[in-house]
């Protein structure tokens, strides 16, 4: 299967700080990918590198087999909804559709108008007067109607109320079902992504900590509780992600290639949210100088 995004050792530095370090990914096509991590982890940087708004400091990145933003044809294949879903406040909704039609050869005007109609947006209204949810939907419409092969979204629902969120994600999933488009959406909340993603990337403190199909990740991670253990004595096939010990008890989050049948442990499956939290705390313990914000609300 072809990859929608392939990066090798990708890194981006601003003055002295590395916003993204040694990022090597191969995201397969046909998935809804969740990019999750605390604020400042590098999610926006990665997405901006993928859209060509930034140039890498180190390493390479290829999107849909081409270099990001290298040509009009390449730009036409990737749709992007930036953080805070920017729109032109002075232009009307209809003007935005005209913008899309003029600047995109692959623009599907019928699709755009149908969407605007279903959303109940007034074409004559200035975009600056729209609510947050309506603005997000307009930005999404602009990205979808150019019929891209890949849709990138940077925390599009972060500041929306729950109903607006549900509506937005509903439209996004409908598009994923209808068009042959892969989706990469970032968020600092796992709850936003849980319903919609079948591929997950965890980014903490400028590095990729975890990447893979959700089904496979959930099947290969286990929470083990049992009497106090020294982690050095664990079987070699177990990769300890997170551990916590009291004087009597040990609780571990492990990644194992094979099912765990050890009677000395109580084995439970791990939910996606706890999984991500485990990797976030693993990153935090490995980098004591900076504790990333951890958010896991429902």
């Amino acid at each position, binding site marked *: 299967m072809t990859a929608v995004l392939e990066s090798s050792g990708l890194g981006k530095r601003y003055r002295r700080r590395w916003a993204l370090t040694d990022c090597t990914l191969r995201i397969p096509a046909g998935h809804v990918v969740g990019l999750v991590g605390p604020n400042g982890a590098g999610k926006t940087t990665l997405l901006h590198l993928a859209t060509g*708004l930034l140039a890498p400091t180190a390493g390479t990145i290829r999107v849909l087999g081409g270099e990001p*933003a290298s*040509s009009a044809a390449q730009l036409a294949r990737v749709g992007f909804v930036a953080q805070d879903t920017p729109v*032109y406040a002075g232009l009307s909704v209809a003007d935005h559709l005209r913008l899309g039609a*003029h600047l995109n050869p692959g623009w599907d005007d019928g699709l755009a108008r149908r969407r605007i109609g279903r959303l109940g947006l007034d074409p004559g209204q200035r975009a600056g007067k729209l609510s947050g949810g309506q603005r997000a939907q307009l930005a999404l419409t602009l990205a979808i109607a150019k019929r891209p092969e890949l849709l990138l979204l940077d925390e599009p629902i972060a500041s929306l109320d729950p109903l607006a969120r549900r509506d937005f994600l509903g439209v996004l999933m409908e598009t994923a079902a209808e068009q042959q488009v892969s989706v990469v959406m970032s968020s600092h909340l796992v709850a936003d992504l849980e319903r919609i993603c079948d591929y997950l990337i965890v980014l903490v403190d400028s590095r990729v900590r975890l990447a893979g199909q959700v089904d496979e990740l959930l099947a290969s991670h286990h929470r083990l509780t049992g009497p106090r253990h020294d982690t050095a004595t664990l079987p070699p096939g177990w990769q300890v992600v997170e551990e916590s010990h009291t004087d009597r008890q040990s609780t571990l989050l492990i990644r194992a290639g094979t099912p765990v049948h050890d009677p000395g442990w109580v084995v439970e499956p791990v939910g996606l949210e706890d999984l991500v939290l485990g990797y976030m705390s693993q990153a935090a313990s490995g980098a004591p100088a900076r504790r990333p914000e951890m958010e896991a609300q429902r």
Partner: protein
Amino acid sequence: MIWLTWRQFRTQAWVAAGALAAAAILLAVTGLHLAHLYDTSGIGTCHGHGDCGQLASNFLTQVAASNLYHTIYLLSIAGLYVAPAIIGIFWGAPLVTREIENGTLRLAWNQSVTRTRWIAVKLTLVGLIAMAAGGLLGLMVTWSDSPIDRAAAMTTGPGPALLSRITPVLFGARGIAPIGYAAFAFALGVTAGVLIRRTVPAMAVTLAVFTAVQIAWPMLVRPHLIAPVRSTTAFDAGSIIGLSMQNGGQMTVLTAVNKPGAWVLSNQVINAAGHLFTGPAPQACNTNSFQACADALARLHLRQLVSYQPGSRYWALQGYETAIFLALALVLTGFCYWRIRRRNY
């Protein structure tokens, strides 16, 4: 892309059109009135008679006496310096910075148009409109004030403080120079925006740099665009307009210049060796008799050295100046293009 550029620029374009229309009406009325005054002053037929200078002076005095037309004249000149500055500040600086601050850059640069095409179209379209606006305003003011310019070209020396069109303040408010200024100010504004990335600081920097250039240019660069004419004439004691003496015998003498329509760069009284005459003052000048002093000076083999740009060089200078400012604008444009290509927004 042309549609989007126009749609974003629409309001500013209409404001400019309105301002130009208002200026056009004002200048049309003024220009017709001045032309009428000029025709009735007799200057048009004075060449054979030898008293053109006097007629011209009368005409200019008449114009200066009217507060209204005097004010409009001054405003028309000021307007041609203010207009390019406004273009630079309000059209140039926000071109890129507004989109950076609103985040809409991230929307625009993900449509199917490369960022180089985006900046190229914006720079070209708005830049051309800026040049057209500057040119149009320059044309209107030049036409409206042309009777005054023609009269001023025939007078010299004292009278109403009106100068000929080649002198610094007027030069920039005439002919095709405003086209160059508008293009330069616009490109300067966009460059400031691209480098500074915030609207208000970019506006401030644009204003500061443009003002500095407009002040420094006529003093430092324009005089040397064409090598000035240096003419040495015999010292005429009858044309002394200034004398100053200090203790120790030092003195400086200033004589009038009779070069109608010229831009005088320097006017010195030099001694036989060719250096500026600084004394010593002849004995006769310590008395209270001016005539005796003048006669004494006349015997010193002094000469008058004038360095000037003749009025006939007006269009040559206009051409050079406009070309240079357009070239500067082009360089700045190229810089912006290169900078935007580098991908770090």
